[in-house]
């Protein structure tokens, strides 16, 4: 097993490295007696964009659910800003992969965003303006009164992201959010997420099975091994920001990282 951690010295993005915002301290997770995760130990800095890659069934989603407070560790501790996570928090938002199931089909685009505002008891009279602002931000202003079933997959995922942003979250947990989208839509949304993270300074935990996506987006990429899920290797990504779909992906550094990560994943899958 490779346990090398490449430490590049180039500062990547303004990140407060002093205190970790989310810390997994030696976390084990078993569900129904089956070990899902073992010995997870990682700190996510405030403002960091951490990508986690791994084969399916390696516990990536469970990792995210632990950070979200939807699951509790069997051993060890998950801490947010130094305090143990005991349940879902409103400053942590989750973007699910299956946008089709995560949106309320009986509410319009506006109504779905309103749900998050209702959750944080946002003042009623200001809701309309805030919804319009969020819809404009993700380019759905024309579709405010449409139901999710009337929107394309990409638009539905945009809507889900907007609903998360309505909470004004400090952390965005994204669970393979673009896995079901076509390549063009996926690239557009990758850049939107990067822009949102840069502007809001949100910390992002991004789960994916797409190596290139992990490298393209992340400040750091962690590869996972399955059975039980555990961390294998961590790469710091020193690619300059803002990133660009063409030039970043052509960067020798990008190609080198992709090769190294690819070799690791290939080895993991055997």
């Amino acid at each position, binding site marked *: 097993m490779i346990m090398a951690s490449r430490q590049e010295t180039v500062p990547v993005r303004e990140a407060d490295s002093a205190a970790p915002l989310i810390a997994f301290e030696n976390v084990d997770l078993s569900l129904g007696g089956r070990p899902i995760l073992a010995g997870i130990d990682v700190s996510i800095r405030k403002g960091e964009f951490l990508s986690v890659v791994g084969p399916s069934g390696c516990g990536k989603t469970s990792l995210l659910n632990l950070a979200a407070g*939807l699951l509790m560790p069997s051993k060890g501790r998950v801490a947010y800003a130094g305090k143990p996570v005991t349940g879902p928090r*409103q400053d942590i*938002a*989750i973007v699910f992969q299956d946008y089709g199931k*995560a949106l*309320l089909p*009986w509410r319009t685009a506006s109504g779905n965003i309103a749900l998050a505002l209702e*959750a944080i008891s946002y003042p009623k009279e200001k809701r309309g303006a805030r919804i319009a602002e969020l819809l404009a931000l993700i380019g759905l202003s024309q579709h405010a009164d449409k*139901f999710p*079933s009337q929107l394309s997959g990409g638009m539905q995922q945009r809507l889900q992201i907007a609903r998360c942003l309505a909470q004004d979250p400090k952390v965005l947990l994204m669970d393979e959010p673009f896995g079901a989208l076509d390549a063009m839509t996926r690239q557009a949304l990758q850049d939107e997420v990067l822009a949102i993270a840069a502007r809001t300074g949100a910390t992002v935990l991004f789960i994916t099975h797409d190596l290139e996506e992990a490298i393209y987006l992340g400040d750091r990429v962690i590869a996972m091994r399955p059975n039980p899920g555990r961390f294998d290797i961590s790469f710091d990504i020193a690619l300059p920001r803002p990133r660009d779909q063409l030039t970043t992906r052509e960067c020798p550094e990008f190609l080198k990282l992709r090769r190294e990560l690819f070799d690791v994943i290939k080895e993991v899958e055997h």
Partner: protein
Amino acid sequence: MSGDTQRFDWRGLVIPVGCVVAAEGAARVTGWQSDMLAPPSSIAVAFWTAALDGTLVKATAATLATSLAGLAIGAVLGLLVGILLGLVRSLDRLMEFSIEAFRPVPAVALIPIALLVFGFGFRMEIAIVAFAAFWPILILTRAAVAGVEPRLIQVGRALGFGAAARVWKIVLPAALPRIFVAFRLAAGIALIVAVTVEIAANPLGLGYNMILAQQTMRPELMLALLVWLGFVGWSLNRLLLWSQKSLFGPAALIRIER
């Protein structure tokens, strides 16, 4: 359900109208005398007479009032218990046997007991209708609530809603289209049971008037009431379909059809 959005096809009337014309023709030609049948023209006259002298209005009001009151009681109770059992799995398992033991009891088999408890009248009939309407609402509401997309509930948790807010904002709206289908089903059952109770025992409403007409050898009035009863049932269902559409809009109907 898609048929409701299409235009009415007049060709569907050929067979019923043809039958009426044939029956009238046969009655005129053969000049039949019967205790069971009556020509359509005398049925129409009997209907008109009953409509004018107020018996029809009074009987219809009694039958509808008891069915709707029973339906309301059964629906409210079924809804509450169904939601509770759909949400709380352990309670559902605890109740499973009791529900399956009581549910198959035919509602009209309760007539003797209800007679002892309430005597003749509205209360007895309402109690039996409520019993009949309670079960389908309970069973279908329980299934609808238990079948709400788990991801939606997770979204509710992730957004930080408490249990009550999750039920109100997510579980109920998600289950509502199916619950309304249960309500439509129960409304049909309520009318059937109300009329059955009236025919079998209770001196009230359309069912009683039908059995009275039969026993006094007035087949034309009995048949007029039968046709009217069919119309009342049909209207009730149309009314519920219409309110389903206007309440839930196109998005909800798509979900039911799936």
